[in-house]
């Protein structure tokens, strides 16, 4: 327990959560399911006898909801990929030997780390063009693409911090040994420093992905038609107040079921790497 506690406070921990997901037991999922069933039951009791049952209604809308959720997942994958690639470059820029590059990278990182995710989303949605001219053709930029880019920006900044922290946590002796073996700086980074960093960066990186996933509903505010928007649409089309609690709990459950295995895996990985 003490080791997990220490892991929770280590400076390399993903700053966003700062804490370790303690291992979830399936009982938490069971408890949520029980709560869901009870609330559905209560709602059912309140509903008019002739109205179709809550459970059936929820099941009816499940395919649509799943489609919307798929968009959430797709956006999270894409934003994570883009953010990681650029974040890596930015992170390496922060440890560059060229002072202007270092300062510039640091500035960009701090700027995007200090911006609220929703404001960045708005910025991208409203100020990025809705179509882009590439060569001779005009490519339309759909809303979800701009939103994904907007989500990739804070991910990029956080990955940059992760990379910088990981590289700086490698003991200086490794750099000295590589230098005295006549490795160039680039070769040292490539063969000695970065391979050691990847392991330490993986749990916080997975944590960042979980945070990104639960941030994707923000895109509903800027008009992307994902699970959150669809839930709202479903509720307004059904027009029954007793459906509100079960439907939102259903949506919460959907995210929980996706994120819980990730949290579990992250915790297991963290324990394994801490032992070494």
């Amino acid at each position, binding site marked *: 327990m003490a080791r997990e506690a220490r892991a929770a406070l280590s400076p390399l921990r993903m700053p966003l959560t700062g804490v370790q997901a303690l291992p979830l037991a399936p009982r938490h999922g069971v408890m949520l399911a029980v709560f869901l069933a009870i609330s559905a039951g209560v709602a059912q009791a309140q509903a008019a006898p002739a109205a179709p049952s809550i459970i059936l209604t929820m099941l009816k809308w499940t395919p649509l909801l799943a489609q919307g959720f798929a968009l959430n997942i797709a956006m999270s994958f894409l934003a994570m990929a883009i953010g990681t690639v650029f974040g890596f470059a930015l992170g390496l820029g922060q440890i560059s030997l060229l002072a202007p590059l270092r300062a510039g990278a640091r500035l960009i990182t701090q700027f995007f780390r200090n911006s609220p995710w929703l404001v960045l989303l708005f910025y991208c949605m409203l100020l990025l063009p809705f179509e882009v001219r590439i060569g001779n053709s005009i490519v339309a930029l759909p809303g979800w693409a701009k939103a994904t880019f907007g989500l990739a920006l804070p991910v990029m900044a956080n990955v940059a911090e992760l990379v910088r922290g990981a590289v700086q946590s490698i003991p200086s*002796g490794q750099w000295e*040994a590589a*230098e*005295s*073996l*006549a490795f160039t700086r680039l070769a040292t980074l490539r063969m000695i420093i970065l391979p*050691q960093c990847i*392991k330490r960066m993986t749990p916080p990186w997975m944590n960042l992905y979980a945070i990104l996933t639960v941030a994707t509903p923000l895109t509903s505010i800027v008009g992307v038609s994902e699970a959150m928007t669809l839930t709202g649409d479903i509720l307004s089309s059904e027009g029954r107040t007793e459906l509100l609690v079960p439907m939102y709990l259903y949506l919460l459950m959907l995210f929980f079921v996706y994120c819980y295995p990730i949290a579990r895996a992250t915790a297991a990985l963290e324990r394994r790497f801490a032992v070494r």
Partner: protein
Amino acid sequence: MTWTPDQPLIRMRDVHKSFGAVPVLNGISLEVMKGEVICIIGPSGAGKSTLIRCINALVPIDSGSILVEGRELHDPRLDKLALRRKVGMVFQQYNLFPHRTALDNIMMAPIHVLRRDRASVETQARALLRKVGLEGKEKFYPGELSGGQQQRVAIARSLAMQPDVMLFDEVTAALDPETVKEVLATIRALARDGMTCVIVTHEMGFAREVADRIYFTDRGVIVEHGPPAQFFAHCRDPRTRQFLSQIL
């Protein structure tokens, strides 16, 4: 100026180095001939680690001159990589690469820096492991080896570059007394084989046995130096005497 073996392999003249406002090296001068083994002793904080790190340009000097095989180190155009192919270094904290096996650690630099072919490097690496007494430990990771074993792998790793001179920075200071012996035996064998060695150490017995000359530093200057027999028995400077009386 081409270097020939009758000239000193390493020649330091009046080397000064300060870290910020703190002077660490205050005019160091010494010479090492090819095949010589010299030991540097002295109290902590005397600048021994800094001194040895200047020889392979890990630490740049403020003023003075260091010639290694005729090439001046105090020169902005110095080819550091070429220098470090000739000068090998072993550290107190071993600094093995933890994510690679012992054999990989030894093979990495010759393959990627010297660009030699893998097969010949592997043969040499296995031979080196045998030489330091670690045959059978090729596939072990540093984390699975004891301190003494790791240090011997570190020595083998530096030897793989086939340097002309080896620097040892208090390589037994972080080891248990039992494992100290194995590492010292390895260094002794190296010295006997004719490798030029500059050894910073606290092990007086070892220094007395293996060194051709002993240098005593204190507060950034070489106080006294000489062959071990003369040094230990008839040291002249009171500082030397005080240091030796404290540790012997």
